[in-house]
């Protein structure tokens, strides 16, 4: 195995291990609350929750601000246009 590959494997393995440790630490600090793993963005009620905590004002928060500015997304079919008047006989 080349040294570059060994370094890459070591770095990526280290990142994964450190990441797992941080996740476990954050879970423990939250009082073992599983909501800490959740992120909820509800466009209908305009509610944004990060780790179980509601975000009152998403202005100035990257990504969440963009979601909050999105208008309602209407997925229903558009209404048919009115039929044109028949030409006079």
């Amino acid at each position, binding site marked *: 195995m080349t040294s570059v*590959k060994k370094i*890459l*494997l070591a*770095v*990526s*393995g*280290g*990142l*994964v*291990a*450190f*990441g*797992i*440790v*941080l*996740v*476990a*630490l*954050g*879970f423990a*600090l*939250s009082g073992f*609350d599983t909501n*800490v*793993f959740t*992120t909820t963005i509800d466009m209908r009620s305009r509610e944004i929750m*990060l*780790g*179980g*905590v509601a*975000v009152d004002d998403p202005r*100035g*928060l*990257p*990504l*969440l601000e963009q979601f909050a500015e999105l208008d309602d997304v209407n997925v229903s079919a558009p209404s048919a246009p009115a039929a044109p008047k028949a030409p006079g006989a």
Partner: protein
Amino acid sequence: MKKNEFLDRLGDLLACLPADQVEESKEFYAEAIADRMEDGMGEEEAVAAMGTPGEVAEAILDDLPAVPRAIAKTRRRSTVLLWVLAIVGSPVWVPLLLAFAAVAFTVYVCIWTLAICVWIVAAALVGIAPVMLVLAYDGFMIGHVPFVIVSLGWALGFLGLGLLVGTAAWAVSKQIARLSALWVKKALSPFRKDRGGNGNSGTTAGRPHGPWGTPAPGAQSNDAGTARLSAVAAR
């Protein structure tokens, strides 16, 4: 039989092949005869050791890939017959050839699609990291510390996982590149002979080869297609 007589007769018998192939075969056997004469054999003795021109020509033709061999043997009987068969048989061989090319191309694309899929997975895993970092920043702004730490953990974990999968994707891509090269060689094998790693007259597995992969006169061979030449050369 003299050397020039042998080579002329061989050239006549191989007239069904392209001119460059005929010249290459004649040069090879001229060299083989010259080598034997240098070893002390007389000219006629060295020529006799090659076998008859008919046997040598048959061995060369038998060693061709399937499609060039069929074309050469038909052309040897009659060029007109070859054209008639090509034209009359075109409703059969043209669709077959197109289907063969389509299958070969599809398999080639499928092989590379595997590699692309692995790279997409690696890119997706790495792509999660910046999103989690942004969410960690948002969590920091609202003062939710456990969420920040968890999001940082996810970001680093997915980044590491993405790098691991990327390393695997690189290794898979190298193997797939080899596999696709093998596939191309296999797909072309009925039409073109692979001459091996050393070019036109290199050696393969320690055995000297003549033109088109035929063993040099006197060389041992286990291939059915080239054993005839060896048997002839041994007499």
